C-alpha cells in the first residue's frame, strides 16, 4: 500500500479507492440515507410498475402457459409410454402363460405317449413271454411224455426180460418151463 502507516497520517479521503467520493450526490439534494431519499420514489415506482408489468405480461401470456404445456406434454408422454409398456408387459405375460400351458400340454402328451409305449411294449413282451412259456411247456410236456413212454417201454422190456429170466431160472430149477399165465401172475404180484 502507498501509505505504510495510515493511522498516523490521516488526510481524509486520501484512499479514494475505498471511498469513491461523494460526487455522485449531485442528483440527491441532501445527504440522506439513499433508500429513504423520497425524491426518487415516484420514478422508482413508475419503473417498478413498468418492469413488473412487463414481466407479468410475459409470464402470464408466454412463459407460464408454455412451461405448463411442456410439463403437461411430458406427463402425457410418460403416461402413454407407461401404458404402452404395461400393455406390452401384459402381452408378454399372456405369451408366457400360453407358452407355459403349451409346454405342460406337450409334457403331458409326451408322458401319455411314453406311458402308452411302455404299456404296449410291456404287453408285447408279456405276450411273447407267455407264448414262449407255452411253447416251452408244450415241449416240456412232449418231452415228459416221451420220457414216460420210453420208461414204460423200458419197463415193458424189463417185464419181458424178468419173465424170460424167471422162466429160465424156473426151468433150470424144476426142469420144466412154467406156463405163460402163471408167470404173468407172479410178475404182476412182485411188480406191485
Amino acid at each position, binding site marked *: 500500500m502507498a501509505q505504510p502507516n495510515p*493511522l498516523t497520517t490521516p*488526510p481524509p479521503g486520501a484512499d479514494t479507492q475505498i471511498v469513491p467520493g461523494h460526487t455522485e450526490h449531485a*442528483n440527491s439534494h441532501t445527504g440522506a440515507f439513499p433508500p429513504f431519499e423520497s425524491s426518487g420514489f415516484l420514478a*422508482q415506482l413508475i419503473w417498478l410498475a413498468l418492469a413488473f408489468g412487463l414481466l407479468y405480461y*410475459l*409470464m402470464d401470456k408466454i*412463459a407460464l402457459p*408454455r*412451461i405448463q404445456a411442456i410439463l403437461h406434454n411430458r406427463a402425457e408422454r410418460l403416461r402413454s409410454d407407461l401404458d404402452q409398456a404395461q400393455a406390452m408387459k401384459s402381452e408378454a405375460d399372456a405369451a408366457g402363460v400360453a407358452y407355459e400351458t403349451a409346454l405342460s400340454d406337450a409334457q403331458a402328451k409326451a408322458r401319455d405317449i411314453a406311458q402308452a409305449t411302455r404299456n404296449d411294449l410291456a404287453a408285447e413282451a408279456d405276450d411273447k413271454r407267455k407264448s414262449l412259456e407255452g411253447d416251452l411247456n408244450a415241449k416240456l410236456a412232449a418231452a415228459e411224455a416221451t420220457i414216460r413212454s420210453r420208461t414204460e417201454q423200458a419197463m415193458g422190456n424189463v417185464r419181458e426180460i424178468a419173465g424170460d429170466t424167471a422162466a429160465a431160472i424156473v426151468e433150470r430149477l424144476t426142469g420144466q418151463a412154467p406156463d405163460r399165465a402163471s408167470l404173468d401172475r407172479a410178475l404182476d404180484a412182485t411188480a406191485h
Partner: protein
Amino acid sequence: MAVTIDPIHQFELKTLVPLGHIGSQQLAFTQSALYMFAAVGVIALITIVATASRAVVPGRMQALAEIFYEFMEDTLHQATGDGGKKFMPLVFSLFMFVLVLNLFGMIPYAFAVTSHLIITFGLAALVISVVVGYGVYKHGAHFFGLFVPSGVPKVLLGILVPIEVISFISRPISLSVRLFANMLAGHIAMKIFAFFVVQLLLAGAWSVLSPLPLFLTIALTALEFLVAALQAYVFATLTAIYLNDALHPGH
C-alpha cells in the same frame, strides 16, 4: 481513521437518463430501473428463450425454468388449494423478480434494487391490493368477515376485530420491510466486514489479523446468497398465504 468507510454509498441511485421533475420528484432512468429491466430480461431468457424448443427432455435452462415453475406451483397449491391457480402468474412473477434482483445484488459492484424500501413496498402494496380487490370482488362484504373470528363471544369481538384489522394492515408493512431490511442489512454487513480486511491490511503489524474478517466476509457472502433466495421464497409464500385469505375469507 485514514480510510473512511461508506457502506451506504452502494445504495445510492444513479441517474442514467435524466427526465425532468414533477415538483420535488425527480424523474429519471436510474440504474435501479436498468437492473429491474435486466431482471425481466434474465427471467425472460430462462422462462421464454430457454423453453422455446419445448423439449420433452429439457436442457439445463429449461430444467431450471421447470424447477422454478413446479416449485412455485407447489408453494401456491399448498397455501391456496385448487382455487389459487389463477394467481400463479402473479406469485411466479414476484418470486422470480425478487429472486433475480436479490441475486443481482450479489454481483460485485452491482446494485441491489430490493434494498430500496419503496420497491419492496410497491410489490407488497400490489400484493395487498390484489388480496383486497379480489376478496371484495369475489366475496363482497363477506370478505370483511376475515376480521371477525368465528366462534368468539360478542364481548371479545370488540377487542379482537381491531387486532385483526391491525394485523391485516401490518401485512404489507412487514412484507416490504422484511425483504428491504434483509437486503440492506446484509449488504451493509458485507461491505463493513470487507472493509475491515482493507483496514487491517493498512494497519501495520495488525495486518496479520486481516484473514479473520476475510473469512467472515466469505461466510457472510454465502449467507447472503442464502438470504437472497430465502427472502424471495418468503415473499412468494406469504403472498400465496395472503391470497388464500382472499380466496377463502372464512376463519
